[in-house]
């Protein structure tokens, strides 16, 4: 299925690892030029850029802290300058720092909220400024089923992920008249490095929750993201699509 994404220019935050890198590469496969940001993983970011370039597309890695409002604006401007235009913004960068609330420090709360929720605000806003004036664009925000259902020991993470959904729906209302679609992909458990850090008994419990008896691959999340950014999904906005094998129903 040709998604008609050839020549589009994309930003994927947190594109050096996990779901983000899979999304970045998938866009390159669809014919897009892709810029990713990274904070610490210079080597991984370089590898993703190489892979994008191997596919014959322009790749760009920008060192930027997603929690920084200024970094977001600078990155969008850099991409517009380097690629000539921005068509798609995918916010994916996120962290978790779990703990039950009575043991959660203020720092633990603030850090997760700042990176996850404020980070999405920063990049959504920077993209909105561009998309509004060009009367077109796509935004996909990667949330989590835990933002929809809540999760033990994740008050901070779940709040940030739920906040991202509310942000996305509000922004869909603000940008609809400018021909901009804003959607959310909410994965369940995905086989990434983030998941590798989870104790085996929790993974088993999560596996049991799914209807299909396995976890998603990062590529399966990426497939939905590129679809949502295509003209095939032009009438979908303000929507949350779970990619969780039936884990949360």
């Amino acid at each position, binding site marked *: 299925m040709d998604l008609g994404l050839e020549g589009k220019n994309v930003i994927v935050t947190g594109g050096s690892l996990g779901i983000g890198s899979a999304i970045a590469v998938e866009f390159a496969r669809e014919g897009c030029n892709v810029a990713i940001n990274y904070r610490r993983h210079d080597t991984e970011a370089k590898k993703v850029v190489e892979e994008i370039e191997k596919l014959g597309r322009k790749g760009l890695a920008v060192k930027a802290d997603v929690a920084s409002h200024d970094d977001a604006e600078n990155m969008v401007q850099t991409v517009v300058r380097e690629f000539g235009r921005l068509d798609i913004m995918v916010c994916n960068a996120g962290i978790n720092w779990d703990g039950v609330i009575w043991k959660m420090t203020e720092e633990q709360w603030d850090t997760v909220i700042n990176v996850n929720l404020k980070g999405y605000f920063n990049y959504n806003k920077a993209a909105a400024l561009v998309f*509004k004036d*060009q*009367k*077109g664009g796509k935004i996909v925000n990667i949330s989590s089923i835990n933002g929809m259902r809540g999760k033990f020991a994740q008050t901070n993470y779940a709040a940030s992920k739920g906040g991202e959904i509310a942000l996305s729906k509000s922004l869909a209302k603000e940008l609809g*008249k*400018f*021909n901009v679609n804003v959607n959310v992909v909410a994965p369940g458990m995905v086989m990434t490095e983030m998941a590798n850090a989870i104790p085996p008994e929790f993974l088993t419990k999560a596996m049991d929750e799914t209807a299909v008896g396995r976890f998603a691959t990062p590529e399966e999340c990426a497939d939905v993201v590129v679809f949502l950014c295509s003209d095939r999904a032009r009438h979908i906005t303000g929507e949350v699509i779970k990619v969780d094998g039936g884990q949360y129903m």
Partner: protein
Amino acid sequence: MFKWFGKVNYTPYTKVTDFAQYLKDGRLMGTRCKKCQATSFPPRADCEACMSDEFEFIEMSGKAQLHTFTKIVAAPTGFEDVAPYIVGVVDLNEGGRALAWFGETIDEDEIEIGMDLQIVPQIFEDLEDIKVYYSLEKPGTTWAKTDSS
């Protein structure tokens, strides 16, 4: 949806309803009679020259000259929050006239009758409802166009 046109809209239903959709997409449209080719701006569905009711939309360049203007201080209902504002009547290069607000690219003291202007499609960005209009801007002002329908 013609109800999108104007800060306050008094005529939500019209045969030229697509005008507002085009304007939202950054396109300023006039009409042309399919039978006798007479063109009109503002648009009209029925040709007063040959009586035909078959028309098509044609995109206008929006290039125009200022015919007259005024700064409205005492505003009617629905416009108190934007008063005072300056409205101008312009003669379009392609024929017809338009009445519109002066936009941000022109300072009040630059305004003079006869000056060249560009009509630019606009969206009220800060309103929840979809509302569109056009403004009078400096010649050479550019804007994005799209095809949403």
